[in-house]
C-alpha cells in the first residue's frame, strides 16, 4: 500500500498533474469564498474543463476543488459573517466574532490550519479504509449490493430535513428517470415514446447539473438580482499571524481535533449528507465536551477548529464511499463519479484493484491539495474578499453557459442541453415544493444498479427471501428499515416540539 501511495505521490508531483490540481484548488477556494456558490456548483463549472484531460488530471482538478472549496468558505465566514459555502455556516459562529474582536488573521489561520490537519486526518482514513472496504464489497453478491443501495437511498431520504415522504418520493422519482431507455439486463428498449434520444436512456450528469445549478441560481434570483453578492468590502486589517502559535493552538487539543475529524469522516461516509451537517454536528459536539461551553459563539478558537476540521475531514469520508462502493457521498462526488464514467472507468469495489494507479493518484492528489490550499490562502487571503464583489449579473450567465457546455460536450449532442433545461425546471419545482434534491440525484445514479442487481439476484435464485436470509443483505435491509423508522420517530418528535412551542406562544 505504501509503495503504491509513494508511486501515486511521485506521479502527482509531475507538472501535468500538479497544474490541474493547483488550478482546481484555486478555483475551489474562490468558489468556496463566494457566498451563494456552493462547492457543488464550482465542481459543475469545472467539469467541462476536464473532458479534454486524462482521467487523473481531471480527477486531480476535482479533488482540488473539493479540498479548496471546503476551506475557502471560511474566509467569507470569518471576515463577513456570511458562509461562503453551506459547510462554513458553523465557522461564522465563532470566526466572525473573533474577527470583530480585532483578530481576523488569527481566526482565518486557525480555520486554515484546522482544515489542513482535519483534512489530512480524513486522508489517513481514506487511504487506510478504502481498500479493506472495497475487499469486503468484493464478497458481495447481487443481493448485498441491492440491499446496500436501498440502504443508501433510504438513509438519504430519512436524513434530509424536510418530510420523510417527500424524501422517499424524490428518491423513487430518481429511479423512475433511470427506467427510461434500454433495459440494462436484456437490452430491450422501453418507454422510448418514439423519441430516438430517449431510447438510449438519460445520462445522469446533465440531470445533476440541471437540477443543482438551476435550483440554486433561481432561488437566489427570487430574492432579486443585480446587486453584488456581498456588502462593499471594507479595508481588511492585517491578517499576519505567527503560524507556529496558531498551529499550536490547533494541535494543543488533540482529542477535540481527532473527534471532530472523526465526525467529519463519518458524515462523509454516509451518502449524500455533506459538509454542512458535519460542521454543525462537530461544533455541537465540541461545545458539549468543552470545559467552557459558554464561550462558544463569542469567538472561541475551539469553535473554529471544530467546524473547519470536520468539514475538510468530511471530504476524505465522501471519497471513501465513492471509491469503495461507487456510491457518491454527496453531489460533489457524484460529479466525480460522472467524470470517471466519461473516461469509461467503472467505479465500485473493483475500482481500486483494477485502476490502482488512478486510485492512489487520487489519494495523493487529496494529500497534496492540502499544502497547496494553505499556500493559496497564504498568498491570497487578503485579496480573496474581492471575489465577493463579482456581480451576479456576470456570474450567473457565465455559470449557465458552462453548464450548457458541460452537458453538450458529454456526447456532442444538443439533446443533453435540453435534458439540462428540463431537469433544471424540475429541480427548481422540487425545491419550491419542498422535495429534497439529494435523494433524487442518488436515485438517478443508483437506479440502474439497483435494477441490475435485483434482476441478477432473482435470475440466480428465484427465492425472494434470499434478500432477507443472507446475513449481510438482511442486516443492510434491516438497517434501511431502521433508518426510515428512526426518521419517522424524529420527525414526529420534532413536530410535537413545534406544536408545544406554538402552544406556548399562543398562551402569551
Amino acid at each position: 500500500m505504501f509503495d503504491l501511495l509513494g508511486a501515486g505521490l511521485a506521479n502527482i508531483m509531475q507538472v501535468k498533474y500538479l497544474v490541474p490540481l493547483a488550478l482546481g484548488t484555486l478555483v475551489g477556494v474562490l468558489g468556496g469564498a463566494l457566498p451563494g456558490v456552493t462547492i457543488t456548483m464550482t465542481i459543475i463549472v469545472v467539469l467541462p474543463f476536464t473532458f479534454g484531460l486524462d482521467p487523473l488530471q481531471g480527477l486531480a482538478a476535482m479533488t482540488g476543488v473539493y479540498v479548496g472549496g471546503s476551506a475557502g468558505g471560511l474566509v467569507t465566514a470569518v471576515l463577513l459573517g456570511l458562509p461562503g459555502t453551506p459547510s462554513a455556516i458553523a465557522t461564522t459562529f465563532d470566526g466572525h466574532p473573533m474577527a470583530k474582536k480585532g483578530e481576523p488573521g488569527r481566526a482565518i489561520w486557525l480555520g486554515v490550519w484546522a482544515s489542513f490537519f482535519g483534512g489530512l486526518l480524513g486522508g489517513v482514513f481514506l487511504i487506510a479504509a478504502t481498500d479493506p472496504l472495497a475487499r469486503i464489497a468484493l464478497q458481495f453478491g447481487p443481493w448485498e449490493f441491492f440491499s446496500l443501495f436501498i440502504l443508501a437511498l433510504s438513509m438519504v431520504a430519512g436524513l434530509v430535513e424536510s418530510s420523510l415522504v417527500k424524501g422517499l418520493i424524490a428518491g423513487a422519482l430518481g429511479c423512475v428517470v433511470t427506467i427510461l431507455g434500454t433495459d440494462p439486463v436484456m437490452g430491450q428498449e422501453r418507454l422510448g415514446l418514439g423519441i430516438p434520444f430517449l431510447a438510449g436512456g438519460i445520462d445522469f450528469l446533465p440531470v445533476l447539473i440541471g437540477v443543482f445549478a438551476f435550483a440554486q441560481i433561481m432561488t437566489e434570483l427570487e430574492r432579486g438580482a443585480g446587486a453584488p453578492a456581498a456588502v462593499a468590502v471594507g479595508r481588511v486589517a492585517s491578517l499576519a499571524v505567527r503560524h507556529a502559535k496558531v498551529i499550536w493552538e490547533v494541535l494543543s487539543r488533540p482529542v477535540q481535533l481527532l473527534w471532530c475529524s472523526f465526525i467529519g469522516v463519518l458524515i462523509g461516509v454516509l451518502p449524500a449528507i455533506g459538509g454542512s451537517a458535519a460542521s454543525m454536528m462537530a461544533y455541537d459536539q465540541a461545545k458539549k465536551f468543552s470545559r467552557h461551553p459558554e464561550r462558544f459563539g463569542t469567538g472561541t478558537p475551539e469553535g473554529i477548529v471544530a467546524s473547519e476540521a470536520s468539514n475538510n475531514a468530511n471530504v476524505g469520508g465522501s471519497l471513501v464511499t465513492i471509491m469503495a462502493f461507487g456510491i457518491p457521498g454527496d453531489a460533489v462526488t457524484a460529479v466525480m463519479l460522472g467524470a470517471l464514467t466519461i473516461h469509461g472507468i467503472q467505479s465500485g469495489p473493483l475500482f481500486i484493484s483494477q485502476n490502482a494507479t488512478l486510485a492512489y493518484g487520487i489519494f495523493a492528489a487529496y494529500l497534496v491539495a492540502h499544502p497547496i490550499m494553505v499556500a493559496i490562502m497564504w498568498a491570497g487571503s487578503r485579496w480573496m474578499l474581492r471575489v465577493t464583489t463579482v456581480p451576479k449579473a456576470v456570474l450567473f450567465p457565465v455559470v449557465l453557459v458552462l453548464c450548457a457546455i458541460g452537458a453538450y460536450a458529454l456526447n456532442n449532442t444538443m439533446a443533453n442541453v435540453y435534458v439540462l433545461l428540463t431537469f433544471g425546471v424540475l429541480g427548481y419545482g422540487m425545491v419550491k415544493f419542498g422535495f429534497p434534491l439529494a435523494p433524487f440525484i442518488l436515485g438517478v445514479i443508483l437506479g440502474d444498479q439497483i435494477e441490475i442487481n435485483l434482476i441478477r439476484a432473482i435470475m440466480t435464485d428465484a427465492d425472494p427471501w434470499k434478500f432477507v436470509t443472507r446475513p449481510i443483505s438482511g442486516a443492510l435491509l434491516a438497517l434501511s428499515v431502521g433508518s426510515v423508522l428512526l426518521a419517522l420517530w424524529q420527525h414526529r418528535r420534532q413536530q410535537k416540539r413545534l406544536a408545544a412551542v406554538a402552544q406556548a406562544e399562543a398562551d402569551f
Partner: protein
Amino acid sequence: MVPIGPGFYPRIVLGITAALSAWLVVADWLAKKAPAPRKPANYGLVAAMFALFGLYAGALPFLGFRVATFAYVAAVNALLDPPRGARGWARVALVALLTAAATYVVFERYLLVLLPRGGWTGF
C-alpha cells in the same frame, strides 16, 4: 422461473412512487394545515431566466456557440443589471464578448472540446 422482463423493475418503481404519492396526499389531507404564508418572490425574473436559457438552447444549433453565447450572456446581463446609458451597454457587450471568446478559445483550441456550430451561420 419468475416472470421477469423489461417491465418488472419499472412496475415496482412506479408502484412505489404511486404508493408514496398517495401517502403524501393522505398525510397532507389529514394534517389540514393552512398553507404557509408566501414570501414575496421575484418569480417574473425566474421565468425570464428559464425562458432565456430555453431560447439559448434552441438557438445553439442554428446560430452556433459563439453567436448564441454572446447574445445569451448579453441578454442575461442586461436583464439582471439593466444598463444605463452608453457605458452600461458597453459593459453588457464587453461581458458577453469576453465570455463567448474566452470559453470558445479555452474549450475549442486548448481543451479540444467541440462546441456547437451554427446551421445558419456556419460559424
